[in-house]
């Protein structure tokens, strides 16, 4: 497996505000607050080694019994990790992580992504000043924007220098700046921020309250967003391009399935090693394709009629979708006018490459014989049973239907009923 390329930080923009932004070689911490709780996080961030800032900061949060200020922590390198705690939204332009919010959570939320070939912009809080760039160190901030770039090189993408040399926590700057005195000229945004220039930079970035734009409202809790995994949502492999024919087909709601094609272009489930149509061997590494659900079987009905099973089906004397709890696209199949058969007797489901059968609470029941010679098994009402090829279903009595494989090309096929 190819190792993902490392990324570096091309720019770390800063927005003025009462919090703190700290940057190391491969990590940054934004703390949306400036009290003793923030100090604990900052201290942990500064004291950690370059590969353990996340552990250090989250340990500090745990040690504080989750009584912490909102913060965002970004760590980059071979992988990109974003950690958020509290009512703070982190926004990115990565397709797998448009937004990560800690709002409504008692603990931090964490998302890890595999670094790709494209740049990734990550921001939080107040929109950053595009003319600023925090190279290393600490600065007061109300927001940040970091651009991570696989092509970024230089000292910022290398290992941390000794913390004692590059990361000296400056003394708290004097919060009072005489309004009568003109602010000092802004610090050079391209150079590293050191302690003796902190006061000047802070003065240059001092913002009145009414200049601070309203923060982005956090989105309502979405139970789906609760799932946080460490697996990348975006495959590192390019997705199979869909054939033009798929794009032109009318969307009839036919599900998509993953398939592999044999050398003769027959479609097969991804788990098989031999083509189900022609018997050709399928390579283990053959690419998969996304296709519309193909027919999986032929259903032999009483009276020598046969129909292809490529969608859900409801069988009975006078079947209907609602009674069978079947989707509207399900095919209604009138089996026979036999009093032992209920009006809506059973439902056949097509799920990916498998078939299933459910007795719809029929009066006389449904029995299945999976293989010839076996004893019939009564299906529990409304319990879905796997329906293997070759099985025979008895609908309340002697009437039966058989599920058989799709015949190979060249053999006669049954027409659709």
């Amino acid at each position, binding site marked *: *497996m190819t190792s993902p390329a490392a990324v570096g930080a091309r720019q770390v923009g800063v927005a003025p505000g009462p919090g703190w932004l700290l940057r190391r070689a491969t990590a940054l911490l934004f703390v949306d607050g400036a009290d003793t709780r923030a100090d604990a996080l900052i201290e942990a961030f500064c004291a950690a080694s370059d590969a353990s800032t996340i552990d250090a900061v989250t340990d500090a949060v*745990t040690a504080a019994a989750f009584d912490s200020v909102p913060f965002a922590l970004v760590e980059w390198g071979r992988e990109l990790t974003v950690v958020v705690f509290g009512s703070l939204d982190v926004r990115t332009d*990565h*397709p*797998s*992580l*448009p937004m990560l919010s800690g709002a409504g*959570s*008692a*603990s931090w*939320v*964490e998302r*890890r992504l595999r670094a790709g070939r494209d740049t990734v912009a990550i921001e939080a809080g107040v929109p950053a000043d595009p003319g600023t760039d925090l190279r290393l160190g600490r600065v007061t901030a109300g927001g940040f924007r970091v651009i991570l770039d696989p092509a970024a090189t230089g000292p910022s993408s290398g290992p941390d220098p000794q913390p004692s040399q590059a990361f000296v926590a400056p003394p708290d700057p004097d919060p009072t700046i005489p309004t009568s005195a003109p602010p000092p000229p802004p610090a050079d945004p391209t150079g590293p921020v050191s302690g003796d220039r902190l006061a000047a930079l802070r003065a240059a970035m001092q913002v009145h309250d009414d200049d601070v734009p309203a923060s982005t409202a956090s989105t309502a809790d979405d*139970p*789906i*967003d*609760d*799932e*946080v*995994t*460490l*697996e990348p*949502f975006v495959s590192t492999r390019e997705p199979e391009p*869909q054939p033009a024919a798929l794009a032109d087909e009318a*969307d*009839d*709601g*036919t*599900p*998509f*399935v993953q398939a592999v094609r044999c050398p003769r272009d027959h479609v097969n*489930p*991804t*788990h*098989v*090693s031999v083509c189900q149509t022609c018997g050709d061997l399928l390579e*283990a*590494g053959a690419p998969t394709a*996304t296709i*519309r659900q193909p027919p999986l079987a032929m259903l032999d009905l009483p009276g020598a009629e046969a129909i292809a099973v490529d969608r859900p089906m409801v069988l009975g004397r006078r079947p209907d979708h609602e009674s069978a709890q079947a989707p509207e696209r399900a095919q209604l199949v009138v089996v026979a006018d036999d009093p032992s058969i209920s009006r809506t007797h059973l439902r056949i489901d097509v*799920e*990916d*490459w*498998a078939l*299933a059968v459910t007795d719809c609470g029929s009066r006389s029941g449904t029995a299945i014989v*999976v293989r010839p010679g076996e004893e019939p*098994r009564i*299906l*529990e*009402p*409304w*319990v*879905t*049973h*796997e*329906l*293997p090829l070759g*099985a025979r279903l008895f609908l309340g009595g002697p009437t039966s239907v058989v599920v058989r494989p799709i015949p190979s090309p060249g053999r006669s096929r049954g027409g659709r009923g």
Partner: protein
Amino acid sequence: MARSYDEATLTTDIATSLRELFAGESPIRAAIADWAAHTEVGTARHENQDAWGQRDGTFVVADGMGGRPGGATAAVAAVAAALDAFGTAATLHPLDWAGRMAAVNDSVVLAGRRAGHDRVGAAIAVVRCIPGRVVMSHAGDVRVYRLRHGEAQVLTRDHNVGAEVSSAGRDLDSIQAARGKAAALTSFLGAATSWQRHSLRVLDARHGDRLVVCTDGVHRRLSRGDWDAVQDSTDCQQLVDDLIARSAEAGSTDDRTAVAITLGSAT
């Protein structure tokens, strides 16, 4: 291969179970010829948020959601409650099964609250081997595979956004709201109603079939080639050990759990 059994995992005394298996006293003898389990904490975790358990032929695997502290709590609670609910269940009526799953869900929620977590969640899969049949139920993305005739077929459909969109006949990329959320679960334990979409299915079971129940830390990383390679495992322990090793080798940093069951002649 050394195996690490995290204390968050409900392990059973395998030796005791094997003695019961061959003593002819346990009801599982009629349905199961062999079984084994293997779980490992992921490299990015401090604790294993997977859990598994077995009782009288009922196997349960749970995967605590996300990287929250409550994940392990949810998984352990889910397994314990599911073994109580389904380990001795004699009926298979769907309403009864749903009622028992509701009780499992309640147990997960309650365990989370007692541990001080406001929101917990877990994916789960239950495989119950009864003489003559195998019953399978799941919520989330814990999968059940069947190894038969050299092929490994996944028997469960993941309850996540990607699978739901595909099953509806839509292209995931065409739905902007779903982008980046393909793996987000649509059914899981720990919330008010999300568990209600759990599956329930009776499987076609044959002598010699092998069932594998595994968390996404395993199955996300395995290719068909990996599944082909493990088909010749001499026993279930070698099978699960191999699956865990292969998923780790493929780069999985998540917790990894696999349970394998070989069905006996009574099915």
